[in-house]
């Protein structure tokens, strides 16, 4: 066993956790959080890969991921506020006016 493998496995586990929590959580905020977890898991994977090849690109990528995640969260929270104003709840299942 070497570090790359372990790192990737760890990332994988994180990713899966995020995924599962996204499936089981109904609260939109928590869903957002779990997406963030997944994104960071991906970021971790990049770090590991970069470490394996000793290249900077991986870290660069991670930076971008962070930035993007932040942006996403900000927009996301704004939208969540709107949703809350209208639905008076954060239950994602409530936000299903459109169907069929």
């Amino acid at each position, binding site marked *: 066993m070497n570090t790359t493998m372990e790192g990737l496995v760890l990332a994988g586990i994180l990713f899966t956790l995020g995924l599962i929590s996204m499936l089981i959580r109904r609260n939109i905020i928590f869903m957002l959080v779990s997406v963030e977890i997944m994104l960071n898991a991906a970021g971790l994977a990049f770090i590991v890969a970069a470490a394996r090849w000793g290249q900077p690109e991986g870290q660069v990528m991670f930076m971008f991921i962070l930035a993007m995640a932040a942006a996403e969260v900000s927009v996301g929270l704004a939208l969540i506020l709107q949703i809350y104003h209208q639905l008076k709840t954060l239950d*994602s*299942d409530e936000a299903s006016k459109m169907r069929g």
Partner: protein
Amino acid sequence: MQWIYLIPALPFLGALLLVLTSRRISKRGVALIGCGSVGLAALVTIIAGLQFMQEGSTGYTQHLWDWVSIGTFRIGMDLRLDALSLAFTFVITFVGFLIHVYSTGYMTDDPDFARFFACMNLFVGAMLLLVLGDNLLLLYFGWEGVGLCSYLLIGFWYKDPANGAAARKAFIVTRVGDTAMAIALFLLVQHTGSLQLSTILARAQELWSVGDPTVVLIAFLLLGGAVGKSAQLPLQTWLPDAMAGPTPVSALIHAATMVTAGVYLIARTNVLFIISPSAQAAVAIIGAITLLLAGCSAFVQTDIKRVLAYSTISQIGYMFLALGVGAWSAAIFHFITHAFFKALLFLGAGAVIVALHHEQDMFKMGGLRKSLPGVFIIFLVGSASLAALPFVTSGFYSKDQIVWLAGAAVGGSAFYSLAAILGAFITAAYTARMVFLVFFGHEKTYVHHPPGPVMMVPLYILAVLSTLAGFVELPHTLGHLTLLSDFLSPVLPAVVTDHGSVALEWGMQGLTVALCAFAIWLAWRLLAAPFPAGLKEVLKNGWGFDDAYNVLFVRPFVQLAKINRKDIVDKLYTGLAMITQRFHRMMSATQSGILRWYVMGIVMGAVIILSVIIWRQYAGHVDIKMIQR
């Protein structure tokens, strides 16, 4: 000679004129056009006939134009005038003309005067085309044409649905026969590569040895056509119903001319029948059986026209019998005499019917010999001829010839002659019965308006003819005269007699005459006598052929049609559409609008893709150790 095309053209022209000017011209004008066209045609025929005879030529063909010509397959609009067609043409035009004249009186107060004459002219034209056509396709043209006219005229009084039904029945039943005939034509095209009569008959002898299955098949199919048109077993059922039409129509179409088209066809294609003996035998047998069955039916009818209808069937049976035994000219002889006396009888009956204000039931008539003496006379003449009273009537000579040859000819046999004699007996019986019922006994009704000269003159002419026409052909026993058969000899092979002697012929004639006398006496006696009811019904309905056909063909067809009015095949497609919609509903359920559901979808996709990939890779034993390095 080069204007024989006028013979069919004139009536067609008349019909066209009448259709175009139908409502605009007076009845007089209509009558003029209607009779005039046929009269002229008759005139032309007579002139052409005289010229033909004095030239002594075997036949004259006139090519009008190419009808259908594809490569080697060529069919022209060709008319051929020879002894046979001349004989028929003469009868058609002449009798036709008389009947037209008669009709002007008979139909005089009918609103659709013009339509009637248009159809009649059309019929005459088609019939002439039938007999003058030089190839079978042209013959078929006329063949179907007369079928159409018969349909139109039977259903002439369209207001009554029953007439319409009768008309359709006539057309459809004959069409069944025509279908057989059409197939015969296909066979001929295939094997002889032509429909030109002379070519076919010539090629036939080269192609086929006697009894060759192909030619037998062809002959049988042609016979099918003939049987349909001439109302012989098993397709005879339409003719009695056909009496729904005006009486002149019955006289012209369903007695004198159209129904004998079958006889003409077989006579025309005699070669084919000669080289297929079984088919020819079939002709004889059909003829024999038909003449007996129809005769019996005729004996119990109450409607005077139906009596005549059945007797027509029976008489044509005689002709078929003659054809079947190879007595070709005898058949034609009987055709001619029959044309005269049966037309006479129908027109006479018509006169009676008009006089009694469209009363057709004989049991409601009676004693008319006093009130309608003229009609009585001519009717008597006709009946005598039909019953074949010896020596003075044409019917006697023609029928006697058949009776004799039925046994004596090569193809003949004792059975045939027996049938013929028996037939003669029955004929005499029902004829006598008819005469007695109508003209003797005490009067049951009074005469509204006796027929005028327009109707009587043709009757007299026909009466004369149906007496004299017999003397063109005399049996060996009475000064052996053979004008007609000599005249026809270029076209029709002479009859060959093997067994039988003059003595025997004497004997048979004696027997026949005796039987006729006995029959008349019997008819007189039985007039009042009760008749076994069950049998009577059977006979009255023509041996129940109609019911049989209803059960076998008509009802199943109609039922099937009813059941499947809504095209079962369509269900297939509608079903398909329904399934599609179901599926749509199922699918749209997946679009629940719930976020986590969508996430689930994506995850599912991911899982499937990944598992497939990894499974594939391991299954493929790809080296994955590269990850550790």
